[in-house]
């Protein structure tokens, strides 16, 4: 294994994190808060990464294994170091709590251990929300966009970080693909930001909300989440953008190059929109009586459905109080998630489609054992590899959920809380039900549970494999 190259890449990632800390630092200066926590963290990051970065290794070849380990290690290290400003500023004095919070930030989960948000320094709150933006499109993709072309094999890094069952490039050159993805990401964020400003939000609020929407994270700077703004126009804007950020970015690229017909050919997109419409309809009907008028009901439903589907996790109502049917629909949406190749979490709709279609295939095969059956997506036959991979992924996913729920049970909370907390974390949604609902938080869990849930967040965002390879001795064996 090419340790030197691994070390080099990790150092680049940590230096990028140090550079990104400039944003909260500037914010702290503007609001007259202490900039020390950020400076100290930046110094530590720089000192740790400088030795590996001075000498770029001669052998830059990496394979799939290094790609996975690099991605998993980067995210772990980013979280470990990213928690420091929180601790140093006194905002979150307990390191494990801070780790939970920043991991929740980078993985764009949005689950919080904070019982009271509005009293925290603005710099810390910005770092918290900004981490969503960084983690949404990914820090390794960012690195691929800014570094001069390293090697054709860097595609392993892209594959390990961008979610979805099948991934490829948009254009022949990897670096250009990364630049295009980030370009679209930045553009959409800016458009939302401007729209929110127009709707009446303050500069700061519009900024952090755009960051959180773009990464589909869900950290808000108000205790009452988005409801705290009392701004229906803003709620609609955020809902629309949450929906947009859950779409496969490849489709946006197709729009840009004029291949609009290809966009609507995407089964995944059509399924996404269909699920959105059907779930919204069910919940509107189910919760009709709870709202004062139709417009409130529709707005709240659409907001919540898009929030959960895109795995953002913003809330405008306490949906914990909703009837069981609506809550269950929301839970199913949590598991499905949004489209692959977006910043959202969950299983991903394309994976769910593959799983469902393989079920049909199995049934057909059992009825007529001699028939030849294939799984088709977007009209094209899918090879066996992604189909098998989707099945194994799902099995691993279920296994992790079961183990996590078991460990959480030690804390003594109810099943609704434990189960929804697990689902919310591994699918990177954020809020669940019960004690971790939209008006609750994760503060009462034990340190063990918080660590396990943080790991779940990483599992979810990185789609399990990279983390497993990092943590398992098999991954590190020389042969």
């Amino acid at each position, binding site marked *: 294994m090419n340790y030197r190259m691994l070390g080099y890449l990790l150092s680049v990632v940590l230096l990028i994190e140090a550079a990104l800390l400039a944003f909260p630092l500037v914010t702290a200066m503007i609001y007259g808060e202490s900039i020390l926590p950020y400076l100290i963290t930046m110094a530590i990051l720089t000192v740790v990464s400088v030795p590996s970065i001075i000498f770029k290794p001669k052998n830059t070849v990496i394979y*799939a294994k290094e790609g996975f380990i690099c991605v998993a290690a980067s995210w772990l290290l980013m979280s470990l170091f990213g928690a420091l400003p929180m601790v140093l500023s006194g905002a979150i004095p307990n390191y494990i709590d801070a780790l939970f919070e920043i991991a929740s930030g980078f993985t764009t989960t949005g689950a919080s251990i904070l019982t009271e948000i509005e009293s925290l320094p603005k710099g810390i709150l910005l770092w918290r929300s900004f981490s969503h933006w960084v983690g949404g499109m990914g820090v390794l993709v960012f690195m691929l966009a800014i570094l001069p072309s390293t*090697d*054709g*094999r860097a*595609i392993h890094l892209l594959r390990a970080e961008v979610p979805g069952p099948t991934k490829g490039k948009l*254009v*022949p050159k990897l670096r250009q693909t990364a630049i295009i993805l980030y370009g679209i990401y930045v553009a959409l964020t800016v458009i939302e930001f401007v729209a929110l400003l127009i709707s009446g939000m303050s500069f700061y609020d519009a900024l952090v909300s755009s960051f959180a929407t773009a990464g589909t994270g869900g950290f808000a700077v108000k205790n009452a989440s988005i409801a705290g703004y009392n701004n229906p126009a803003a709620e609609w804007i955020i809902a629309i953008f949450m929906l947009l950020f859950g779409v496969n970015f490849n489709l946006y690229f197709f729009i840009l190059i004029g291949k609009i017909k290809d966009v609507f050919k995407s089964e995944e997109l059509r399924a996404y929109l269909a699920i959105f419409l059907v779930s919204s309809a069910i919940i509107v009907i189910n919760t009709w009586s709870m709202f004062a008028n139709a417009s409130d009901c529709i707005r709240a439903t659409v907001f919540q459905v898009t929030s959960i589907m895109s795995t953002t996790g913003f809330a405008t109502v306490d949906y914990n109080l909703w009837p069981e049917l609506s809550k269950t629909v929301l839970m199913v949406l949590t598991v499905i998630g949004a489209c692959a190749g977006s910043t959202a979490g969950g299983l991903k709709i394309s994976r769910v489609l593959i799983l469902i279609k393989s079920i049909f295939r199995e049934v057909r095969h059992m009825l007529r054992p001699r028939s030849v059956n294939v799984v088709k997506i977007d009209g094209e036959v899918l090879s066996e590899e992604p189909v098998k991979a989707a099945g194994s992924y799902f099995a691993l996913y279920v296994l992790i959920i079961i183990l996590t729920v078991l460990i959480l049970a030690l804390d003594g909370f109810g099943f609704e809380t434990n189960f929804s907390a697990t689902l919310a974390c591994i699918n990177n949604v954020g809020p669940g039900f019960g004690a971790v609902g939209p008006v609750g938080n994760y503060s009462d869990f034990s340190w063990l549970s918080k660590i396990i849930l943080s790991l779940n967040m990483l599992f979810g965002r990185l789609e399990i494999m990279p983390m497993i390879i990092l943590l398992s001795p098999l991954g590190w064996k020389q042969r």
Partner: protein
Amino acid sequence: MLEEKYMNIIVVGCGTVGAAICAQLAEEGHDITALDKSVDALSEVVNSYDVINLEGNGADVSVLRRAGADKADLLLAVTSSDEVNILCCAAAKRLGTKNTVARVRNPEYSELIQLMRSEMNLSLTINPELAAAKEIYRMLRFPSAAKTETFCRGRVELAEIVVSEESELCGLSLFELRSKLNIKFLVCGVLRGEEALIPSGDFCIQAGDIISITLPETETVRFFKEIGVYKQPVKNVLIVGGGRTTYYLEAMLKEGKINSVVIEKDKERCRDLIEQYSCTVICDDGTDHDLLLEEGIDRIDAFLALSDMDEENAIISMYAKKREVPKIITLISKLSYVDLFKNMGLESIVSPKSSTAEYILRYVRSMESVLDSEIESLHKIMDGNFEALEFIVKEDIEGLTDIKLKELRPRRGVLVACIVHNGNVIIPTGDDVIRRGDTVIVITSDKQMNSIRDIL
């Protein structure tokens, strides 16, 4: 580098040659789309090189459209099927690709190539076995060198020589060698083990080094005689393997009045050879040592192992080496074997796949030529570590022409190996000058030189 012009290239067929081309062209910065029917071949390529992949049949118009054939600058068809390659190029040209190159191996098509070029709009066709046969013939003409290339329409010779332990060259520095021999030549590159370098005057030659020399073609015989490695020109050859390469080679041997005996297992192939040429053809297993002895392996000037199996070629070449045949040429298909067999002592190895890749790269490189000086030819030497480029200086270039070489500051790893002025071959010293109209041969480790200006 001057304005980089990155081209849009489609490579159809990701086998050995396709993959090698993707590797080199992607490194040079072009936008490559790799097309193949096999998902496995594609994933090999896309996982290792900065290209984008597309699965499908290269001759299928809809697939070509998706690959962007209408906007492509170049399409290279190197699948294993000649017919697919030709169809592919024809379709692409109609869709709008600017240039197309097809690999065509079947000798039965070789006469049609002229017709195909105009009718089907192929810009170029490559025949790897023909290229290999040409290379083998060149080696036979100059058996003393491991490998030779000619430049400037045959006026300049670039020869690679393996320094054996008994050679008179061992232990001499380049200064000493120059003064000892009264011939104008230049050692432009040395390959020692895995390291290739451009030597300075105090460099000491050791046994096992492979040195690359430029010299006027007229001086070659004298040079080899002087350094004691002269081998008599080849009159009799023994060839094992009667495939396409041998087929093409026989024509050249006939012209060069070299006698040959071919040993080939397959009856059909034997018949094809006999029908066309008047060589002696033996239908039997060439790996049989007794047979080789019977056919006079001890009495021949050169032994050519040209069968379809790399391993067999290597083994019988080693046997020929043991029998002390003066010149042994081995045909190796798998690129990864070449280094291994070179280390085992087989000096002269011909690889059709790497010649094809090199030929195509040459073509691509010449497509990018700048107006004022063109790449006439390009050869990879020293195991692919260096490139030898032939430029024609068409116009005066400021800072380059009419300035003494010792006042020019060439870049690191660049050497002006030879200047041909008015037909005279000049092995340059610091006082020589490049003038308009000259042909200049440059050796460089930077594999992306496009223009004569790049030497500065």
